[in-house]
């Protein structure tokens, strides 16, 4: 159930004015930075290692280890990834709008630890209010002495630019993000050699970290890495901000101790999801953004734990959980997910560009009652062409992971609900009612 873990990244969000400098300073804001500046960069890095902070963007790579991988060079850049676009994910959006100073403070701490003199916060373009609040926060941070020359009287100087995206899911992929930041189309780069830590922005070593990852840093520095890693269990340390949506009574964001809280708690606890709407049964849920394979009722008692979810054949990904009740149509859900990937494929790699369209069209045909029995095999064959053998984690025929996310996101649903897919074909129509409008 709900544990006694403190709220780390959402501590301030109970205040209406959580985005203002006044509130930030009144609630311990910029104390973590002051403490960091009294330490050496190596000591700050060590605290983050001790915290076992996993990157909160989706891949879940340890943040401290990522920092260690940078190529030694006179210029290092820090880029904060706030291009949150993974469907059903809305945590970074929340942190940007409601606690922008926390993002800025975390960014300054990270820049200090890695020795960057220039940092960027790449904010998704559709977050107009977020862009305004971040810009305001950066203006205020300069005036407060937390940015610019000799931060808080120290030897450390940093400039920070808030950079707007322009609407492209692919720019959440870190090399595509860097291309976009260089004023180009968001085409992912080929890795190797373009691992950002070695060859990143303008060819210089660049660390790309997620918004929520940055938002954890002020607390970690203030309270120590050990206090953070004491929360959660094993590799899933600390708390995490989960985004819950779909057919639950109380969709919303919930900061929870990792591993200790289960999917059943998140979906059914009165204080959290409050159960399935209209008291219906659970059909399936997506455990970590639409790129993740679906889970089913038998997975409910699993902890919100990166390793456990990975071993069970899916991923905790971006920490967003979508719930489907018994009336949801599996074909329609799979169709909408594949439509997303088709629209957002950057077009560089044939398997992804063409395959996503084929998959979308086949699924649409089945949903419309025009499908054929052999369509299921055709569908799986198209998936196999993008991610051979349909393994987990998927194999890759494309430059980036958008391609293999297409099969990963729908194949588990096809296998599980094979009969439902075939019923569409047999009846020549979708057997489910239209989606009910959620009235307010």
């Amino acid at each position, binding site marked *: 159930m709900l544990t006694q873990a403190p709220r780390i990244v959402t501590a301030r969000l109970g205040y209406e004015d959580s985005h203002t400098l006044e509130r930030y300073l009144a609630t311990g804001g910029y104390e973590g930075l002051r403490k960091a500046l009294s330490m050496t960069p190596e000591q700050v890095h060590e605290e983050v290692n001790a915290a076992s902070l996993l990157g909160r963007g989706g891949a879940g790579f340890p943040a401290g280890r990522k920092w260690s991988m940078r190529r030694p060079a006179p210029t290092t850049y820090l880029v904060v990834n706030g291009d949150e676009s993974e469907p059903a994910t809305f945590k970074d959006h929340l942190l940007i709008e409601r606690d922008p100073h926390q993002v800025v403070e975390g960014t300054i701490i990270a820049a200090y630890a890695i020795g960057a003199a220039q940092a960027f916060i790449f904010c998704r373009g559709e977050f107009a209010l977020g862009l305004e609040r971040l810009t305001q926060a950066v203006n205020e941070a*300069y005036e407060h002495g937390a940015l610019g020359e000799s931060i808080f009287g120290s030897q450390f100087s940093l400039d920070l630019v808030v950079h707007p995206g322009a609407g492209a899911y692919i720019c959440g992929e870190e090399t595509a993000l860097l291309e976009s930041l260089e004023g180009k189309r968001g085409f992912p780069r080929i890795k190797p050699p373009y691992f950002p830590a070695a060859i990143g922005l303008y060819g210089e070593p660049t660390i790309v970290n997620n918004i929520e990852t940055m938002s954890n840093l002020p607390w970690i520095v203030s309270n120590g890495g050990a206090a953070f890693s004491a929360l959660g269990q094993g590799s899933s340390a600390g708390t995490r901000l989960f985004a819950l949506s779909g057919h639950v009574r109380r969709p919303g964001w919930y900061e929870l101790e990792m591993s200790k809280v289960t999917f059943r708690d998140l979906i059914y606890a009165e204080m959290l999801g409050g159960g399935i709407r209209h008291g219906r049964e659970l059909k399936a849920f997506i455990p970590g953004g639409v790129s993740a394979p679906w889970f089913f009722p038998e997975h409910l008692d699993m902890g919100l734990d990166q390793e456990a979810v990975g071993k069970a054949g899916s991923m905790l990904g971006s920490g967003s959980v979508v719930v489907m009740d018994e009336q949801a149509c599996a074909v329609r859900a799979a169709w909408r997910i594949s439509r997303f990937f088709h629209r957002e494929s950057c077009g560089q790699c044939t398997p992804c560009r063409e395959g996503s369209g084929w998959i979308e069209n086949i699924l649409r045909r089945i949903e419309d009652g025009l499908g054929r029995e052999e369509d299921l095999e055709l569908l799986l064959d198209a998936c196999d062409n993008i991610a051979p053998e349909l393994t987990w984690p998927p194999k890759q025929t494309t430059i980036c992971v958008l391609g293999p996310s297409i099969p990963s996101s729908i194949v588990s649903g096809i296998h599980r609900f094979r009969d439902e897919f075939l019923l569409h074909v047999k009846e020549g129509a979708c057997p489910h009612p239209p989606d009910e409008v959620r009235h307010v």
Partner: protein
Amino acid sequence: MGHLSPELRSRAERMVALYPERRSALIPLCHLAQGQDGYLTEEAMEEVAELCGVSPAEVRGTASFYDMLHTEPVGRYVFAICTNIACMLAGAYEVLDHATERLGIHLGQTTEDGLFTLEEAECLAGCDRAVCVQVNHRFFGPIDEEGFDQLADDLAAGRLDETVPPHGVLNRVVRKVGLEASRRKDSTISRNPQSAGDPPVGPAAAKPEASGPSQSEAS
């Protein structure tokens, strides 16, 4: 040249100066120009190209990749109705059908009076407020059929002018400080000498307004 107003031109020049390389300002400048004209005109793309030191074709090539940058005129208000999974489960396609009927246009079209354009959006990161709608990238939700009608009425009557600026205006907060700091690529070198020490390994094999009843209200 001289398509941008003098005020926006000087704001544009300051934006270019924020980046180690000029071309990085390309997308922010496209947003700025779109804020002046409502969409990205040929003349604006030429001026952005000049400011960034690239050709107009490169500006167009970049701009045409991104959903938010319009190279054709759009309405004063662009509705973006999210239909991705979380919103779809909350009935987004029903709301979208209602919107097309109410406005009398198909997706991607603009009403004859130039007031409204209708788009089907991908996930807007507002899933706790499904069905989620943006107007000129300002959030509204949850929205049902009646909510959509109300929103369209309020916009048409100018009741939301303060929260929803005309299409293209994105960030109304101007960067005021940090403009004079040493920011060119060459001058950032060895600016923070104390941090050069870490012995890293390389090259990495690494992969890379809440309205819902969320925790703040619950606990």
